[in-house]
């Protein structure tokens, strides 16, 4: 707060909000030359200091950044652990909730000799088109039986678009856990 008063504009008093900036006069030629020289050396020192540091690069295909437990990756379908029956009853609520419209469910009736799910009906066809999926996780929220959850898998690229349509068998199969999970507090 040195010298001068804030500029007064009619009808508007900025009061305490005005920050005054006092500019020093530009340095003379000798001083600016010296400053340039010293600052250049300081910059060179800074870059040289990076030299002994270990690079922060993550060597991707070999090393992977761990994902958080809540990370939304490729979907998984689940079975009951005791009976081995599918949790999905083919209600299509996930398909209804899906904003990208990438889930296709065709339900069928269970019969006694051929029981697939625990409920009355089961999903005869359950397909997720992962090339359309936006990984929002609404299907997971919509599911009343926790049959579908989002996994941690994110390496989903493929050579063909049709290969990205995941069928029920693929979603039910235990996926290769290739993405490391981030530990507590990491």
């Amino acid at each position, binding site marked *: 707060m040195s010298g001068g008063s804030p500029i007064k504009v009619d009808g508007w008093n900025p009061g305490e909000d005005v920050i005054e900036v006092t500019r020093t006069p530009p340095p003379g030629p000798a001083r600016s030359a010296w400053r340039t020289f010293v600052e*250049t050396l300081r*910059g*060179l020192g*800074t*870059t040289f200091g*990076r030299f002994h*540091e270990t*690079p*922060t*690069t993550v060597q991707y295909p070999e090393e992977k950044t761990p994902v958080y437990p809540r990370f939304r990756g490729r979907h998984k379908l689940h079975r009951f652990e005791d009976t081995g029956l599918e949790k999905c009853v083919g209600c299509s609520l996930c398909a209804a909730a899906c904003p990208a419209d990438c889930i296709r469910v065709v339900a069928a009736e269970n019969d006694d000799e051929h029981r697939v799910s625990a409920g009355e009906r089961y999903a005869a066809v359950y397909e997720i088109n992962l090339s359309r999926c936006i990984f929002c996780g609404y299907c997971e929220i919509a599911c009343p039986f926790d049959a579908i959850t989002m996994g941690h898998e994110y390496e989903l690229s493929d050579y063909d678009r049709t290969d990205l349509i995941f069928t029920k068998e693929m979603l039910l199969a235990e996926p290769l856990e290739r993405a490391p999970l981030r530990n507590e507090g990491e």
Partner: protein
Amino acid sequence: MIAVVGYYEPVWIQILKSIVIFAVGLQLVPVVLLAERKLLGRFQSRYGPNRVGPFGALQPLADILKLLTKEQFRPSTSIGFLFTIAPIISIVTAVMALAIIPFGNVQNILGTDVGLYGIDVSIGPLYLFAMSGIAFYGIMLGGWSSGSKYSFLGAMRGAAQLISYEVSQGLALVGVIITAQTLSLTGIVEAQKGMWYFIPQVVGFLIFLVASFAETNRAPFDLTEADAELVGGYNTEFGGGRFASYYFAEYLNVIVVSGIVTTVFLGGWLLPFGIEPPGWVDPFVVLGKMALFTFLFIWVRATLPRLRYDQLMSFGWKVLLPLATLNALVTAIVVTVTH
């Protein structure tokens, strides 16, 4: 061992020598290229290329193979003849400038006296400036004949930059030439026995170094390329082998300038404290000192941001040129008084 200034060997040895020097120069470029990319990586807290071959050692080979197998593309607005010849001018002048760098004294190899340099011209520095003067045509014609405005701007910048900095570079060397009283590069090295010129000629050394950065179009003076604003400047429209030629010439210029600085200011093949190693060590001493300067080039590139065009101009004309003139003048007075 006294250097034989202006010594010439039989013709067949000269031809053999030129082949050896060209081969060595050709091998040095990929090494510098890789060193630059690796060191830049470390300066920026990353690894640099490390996928091709052990520790990325084959990266330059992969780069060059990629460039050479690419299609030779030419914009329809370009002037074909000049477009083809411009990269050749760049690369030829760079290789020719390499010829005068002395890697060692005249030595007896298998009964023949051989000077470990391409040619010991009696007008060493002038030859160098002639070559860098012609090299500028490589950049200017390349940029101009591309028929692209970015290339044109880069070429024009290159022209202005070269004119501003070559003067200071030459004047910085005048001090050394006055002190050594010879224009032969081997003679200049011999004259540095006892004291390397970067101590008495420290101002000239610094000016020459700064001007060399501008001369080789490297950061912080890479306005001709200026990838951020000019997309690549004079070489925007070049691809494949032609681009590779420009790239090659750039790194060869770094090597040549390192060699000149080593020769003129750092005592060439001489070692400090009166150590006199056998003759075959000389080239390695020179190469070691050159590596030092190449490292400096890379280090500076990793540190300093690119200058604005007007800053570059005012720095060249208002700071470097008066300083270089003053340096030459003071040296002349001191030499006249003490002799």
